[in-house]
């Protein structure tokens, strides 16, 4: 008992003071009523005093029990709060990770959007040029026309050649005939001259 210093006692009493205003008074009253009970004279008074003391004691016990329960409750609340705190920390970490994930996804989506826009830009330019199938068809049609026309040209050229050759043959035959006629004329002239000279020779 002497080990507990006065300071400790005063500090403890001041600490408990807020709650224990009623309890502190009750304990003092109990001590006083105990002394009064010891000094009481009559039986009924003593008995009623004894009852009163018991009730004060039970009140004190009750309030102590209440305080113990509150203390228990506080401990459990603390644990509960610790648990909730840890859970919140976990979810914060999770949210951070999700944010990082989402940022990566945003970058990816931006890249995709950029690619799409590049594609669109090129597609617009390509649309200006006519369709490849149509152009191919036009090319084919033009090719066929060209072939057809070249056939016609060939046949016309052949005909021309033939006519030319025929004319050539005709002309050369006419020429030969002319030559032959001229030759014949010349021959007949020469014959005539010879005949006349022979007659002139034979006459005198």
């Amino acid at each position, binding site marked *: 008992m002497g080990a507990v210093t006065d300071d400790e006692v005063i500090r403890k009493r001041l600490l408990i003071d807020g709650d224990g205003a009623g309890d502190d008074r009750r304990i003092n009253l109990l001590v006083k009523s105990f002394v009064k009970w010891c000094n009481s004279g009559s039986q009924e008074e003593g008995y009623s005093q004894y009852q009163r003391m018991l009730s004060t004691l039970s009140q004190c016990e009750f309030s102590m029990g209440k305080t113990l329960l509150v203390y228990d409750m506080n401990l459990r609340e603390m644990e509960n709060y610790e648990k909730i705190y840890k859970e919140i920390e976990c979810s914060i970490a999770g949210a951070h990770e999700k944010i990082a994930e989402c940022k990566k996804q945003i*970058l990816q989506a931006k*890249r995709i959007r950029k690619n799409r*826009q590049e594609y669109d*830009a090129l597609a617009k*330019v390509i649309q200006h040029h006519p369709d490849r199938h149509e152009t191919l068809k036009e090319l084919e049609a033009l090719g066929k026309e060209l072939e057809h026309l070249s056939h016609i040209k060939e046949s016309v050229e052949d005909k021309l050649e033939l006519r030319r050759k025929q004319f050539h043959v005709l002309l050369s035959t006419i020429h030969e005939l002319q030559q032959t006629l001229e030759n014949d004329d010349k021959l007949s002239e020469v014959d005539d001259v010879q005949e006349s000279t022979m007659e002139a020779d034979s006459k005198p």
Partner: protein
Amino acid sequence: MEHAAPSPVPLGQAEVFQALQRLHMTIYSQSVSPCGKFLAAGNNYGQIAIFSLSAALSSEAKEESKKPMVTFHAHDGPIYSMVSTDRHLLSAGDGEVKGWLWAEILKKGCKELWRRQPPYRTSLEVPEINALLLVPKENSLILAGGDCQLHTMDLETGTFTRALRGHTDYIHCLALRDRSPEVLSGGEDGAVRLWDLRIAKEVQTIEVYKHEECSRPHNGRWIGCLATDSDWMVCGGGPALTLWHLRSSTPTTVFPIRAPQKHVTFYQDLILSAGQGSCVNHWQLSGELKAQVPASSPGLLSLSLNQQPAAPECKVLTASGNSCRVDVFTNLGYRAFSMSF
């Protein structure tokens, strides 16, 4: 509410001069440090200012964090272009390119590590260098500017290896095509030329002003800005800002903006452009204007996206132009604040 009347302080000569300087300042170029935490800006007086992005973006930023950490005089003329390698800052303007160490740049009295001048044909006038481009694969730097040639400088030895000729007027901008080692250059003559670095020859020419969809003869034919994404290219300036498909050399989308654009870049699925109007325009590849964010300078000349992996918290877009302010856009949608010289 009563406001205390400020007592008039007589401004000295120096302050008046500084104020005038700031009024007439143009910031031509920007570059982000390899660690991602600093931004260098070069202006028309030849000064470089280093801003601390991490300090300006932090939650306890004050007015002083928006001022440069150091400002020093780097060139005698305007600094038109700056790039950063993983240890150096390269700045170019009046015919020379200078290299600075990022690790030393914050200390007072920083001196350049080296300065080189590409071999010019005439030694009488020194043409300016308008654009710098790093080619990481062969560790070289390409310079282009007033003498209509592209010079390649090897970064290790400092020697000038190639001089690519083909442009008939000075070159404004350069871009690197990643997959094949090709360089695109655009200039005053209105043509975008593709150069293959391995054979050192011009492989493709796109004369932008000859295409009806994008040419705007009243603006001229100059190409002010160029950006490429391997298969696609966007260029603008005198002609309208257009998206081109490089393999077929066809213009696919014309972006409907009248003001000539001075800087353009690809970002994720958007195209960001800035120019004479005081806004940064966000375009989708289909030609739609997704957003137009106003900036504080009356005309913008340079955009820089800090995508250094070492500092993801400093991932911002910075814009600078015809004023002494560099606007910082933290979320691309609005201007968060401005830093100024």
